[in-house]
């Protein structure tokens, strides 16, 4: 509905510097964690743990650095459709590769 | 469970008729409604349209029904596919390796390492096809319309399909994946023959294949025993004419050599029969001349002789001293074929090939 598109039209959100620095610190810590996790031998799981941490990091970047946390809802829908489409592409490609 | 190919054909055709039936009924329904509405509610008869903007029940009905119909049609198509992919094991079938390259199929019968540009199979036996293309070639598709079956030959991998002929006859084989210049001429024949004829054909091929090539005289003179060049013209048409021209004039693809000009110095590996044999066996690196190691050594000699005969000066130009032949035979260990052929009882080989088809599992 048209109202959704323009819900937050006139609010200009100014993020405190502290938030950015906090997010950055969290990202650095997660980078450390992902390197540390790679040293532990988890066999098949290694890559999934790495991907999980990477997803967490990218969520932080998208929400705060890229301001999605403060954008109107339509931007959320956009992101969900784009990522949804991508995940579908991956999963369906593996409908072939997983069974080869 | 092994099923006859007749079942695959029937299943595909049944699926086709069911889908066509559903389609035709719906199509006629839609078009009839369209025409009736267009006439009945023409503005001259119906100046003011009714005020209808929708009907949810109807919408749900014509969403759900096509959905159910879709699921049904999926299963109809799945049935025949399941048969096609229910491959007989290698022990219970005759394995034919299908080698596709620009622009010819080669059929190889691996147990005996023999090859042919046409496909021969016995009637009533499951045929398992292993489909390949060389790494430096392109994708082709092996298609036998009569058996409703098709699978691509992809460089770098082996694909599988199977069929079983229920009737003696000759069937078309097409390349169905676009592969360039002579895609339309990449046509071959499938000869479905009686088991007896198949045995005969196989014996002939096996004998050819395992005749030792230390008989230098035989390969030096193509006509000496009438053995070398018997099918050379046919092989040349299938494997060489696409690029080098039906008369050897060359130039049909970029850089394809002419066999009839006199500039012998430009032949990269030389102009004699042993040189040509070497070129055929190894290919020419950095050019589009590929290694034709899919052909048997006898076939390669046959081709070399045929190519030599295309030149106006004839084979005389291609003469080489007997030492050259001996060198070649050493180089490719051609004489050792003799040992193989001695150790390899032809009859048993055929038994193996034909009888292994698992009559016990066949209905």
């Amino acid at each position, binding site marked *: 509905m*048209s109202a959704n598109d323009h819900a937050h039209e006139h609010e200009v959100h100014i993020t405190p510097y502290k938030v950015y620095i906090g*997010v950055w610190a969290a990202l650095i810590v997660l*980078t450390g964690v992902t*390197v540390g996790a790679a040293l532990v031998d988890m066999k098949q799981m290694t890559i999934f743990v790495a*991907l999980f941490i*990477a997803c967490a990091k*990218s969520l932080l970047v998208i929400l705060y*650095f890229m*301001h999605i946390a403060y954008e109107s809802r339509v931007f959320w829908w956009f992101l969900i459709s784009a990522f949804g489409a991508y995940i579908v592409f*991956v999963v369906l490609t593996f409908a072939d590769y997983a069974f080869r | 469970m092994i099923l006859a190919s007749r079942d695959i054909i029937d299943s595909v055709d049944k699926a086709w008729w069911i889908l066509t039936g559903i389609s035709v009924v719906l199509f006629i329904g839609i078009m009839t409604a369209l025409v009736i509405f267009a006439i009945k509610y023409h503005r001259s008869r119906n100046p003011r349209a009714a005020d209808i903007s929708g009907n949810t029940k109807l919408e749900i009905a014509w969403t759900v029904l096509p959905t159910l119909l879709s699921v049904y049609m999926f299963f109809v198509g799945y049935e025949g596919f399941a048969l096609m992919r229910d491959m007989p094991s290698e022990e219970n079938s005759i394995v034919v390796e299908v080698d596709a390259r620009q622009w010819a199929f080669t059929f190889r019968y691996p147990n005996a390492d023999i090859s042919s540009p046409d496909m021969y199979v016995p009637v009533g036996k499951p045929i398992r096809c292993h489909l390949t293309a060389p790494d430096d070639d392109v994708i082709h598709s092996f298609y036998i319309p009569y058996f409703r079956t098709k699978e691509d030959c992809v460089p770098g991998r082996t694909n599988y399909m199977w069929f079983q002929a229920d009737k003696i006859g000759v069937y078309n084989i097409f390349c169905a994946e676009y592969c360039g210049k002579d895609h339309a001429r990449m046509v071959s024949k499938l000869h479905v023959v009686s088991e007896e004829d198949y045995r005969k054909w196989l014996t002939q091929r096996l004998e050819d294949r395992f005749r030792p090539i230390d008989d230098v005289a035989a390969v030096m003179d193509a006509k000496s025993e009438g053995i070398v060049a018997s099918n050379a013209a046919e092989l040349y048409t299938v494997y060489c004419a696409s690029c080098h021209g039906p008369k050897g004039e060359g130039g049909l693809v970029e850089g394809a050599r002419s066999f009839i000009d006199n500039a012998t110095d430009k032949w990269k590996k030389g102009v004699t029969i042993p040189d040509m044999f070497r070129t055929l066996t190894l290919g020419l690196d950095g050019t589009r001349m590929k290694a034709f190691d899919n052909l048997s050594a006898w076939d390669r000699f046959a081709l070399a002789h045929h190519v030599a005969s295309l030149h106006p000066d004839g084979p005389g130009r291609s003469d080489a001293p007997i030492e050259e032949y001996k060198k070649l035979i050493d180089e490719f260990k051609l004489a050792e074929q003799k040992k193989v052929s001695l150790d390899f009882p032809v009859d048993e080989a055929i038994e193996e090939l034909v009888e292994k088809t698992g009559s016990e599992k066949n209905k």
Partner: protein
Amino acid sequence: MSDSLSAAPSATGDAHADDHHGHYGVPGYDPIASRMGMWLFLFTELLLFGALFIAFAAYLSKYPTYFAEGSGSLNVPVGAFNTVVLLTSSLTMALAIAALQRGDKNLSIKMLNATVLFAGVFCVIKAFEWGAKIEMGIYPGSATLAAMDQGKQAFYNMYYTMTGFHALHVIIGAGLILWVKKRTLDDRVNPKRLVLMENIGLYWHLVDLVWIFLFPLYYLIA
């Protein structure tokens, strides 16, 4: 591209705004539309890299051991350091926008400079990494690579392709940041009209986002 997205005035202005910027159909400044356009553009970048990640996943599933071996040949501390560099550059980019929002042009310019500097550091380190591999004879088309197992070849081909594309984006991003810096100095990008800087910031964060996935997938699967 970004020019049109950010600077092109919309023909009818913001038709929905309660406070009309003029009467109907007069061009206006619509930062939301510009950011929307930028996000849609970022989706195309996302899918472009996404396709490469699909190829990576396909080959990883085909050659797991070769990919592990290949990954083992990459230098983890260097990769981790580069990750930190790029994350920090993302922070400075975000701070540049935040500073300009507060009217602190001076700090904003400094932060943009820092971002470009980090981009440079990233590229130099990446160049050394590539250089080391090339010195060992491992690069596309080399005889050494051609002699390796097929799985190894697939790994290095993917490695050069994906990090190469990413590095190209880093360079383009740095160029865009220099351009927006010039516009900020000219006051054409200012606290009232800063969507251009926001959009280039979004682009820069996307570059970061891609590396967040590239790093573990290439360096940490040994």
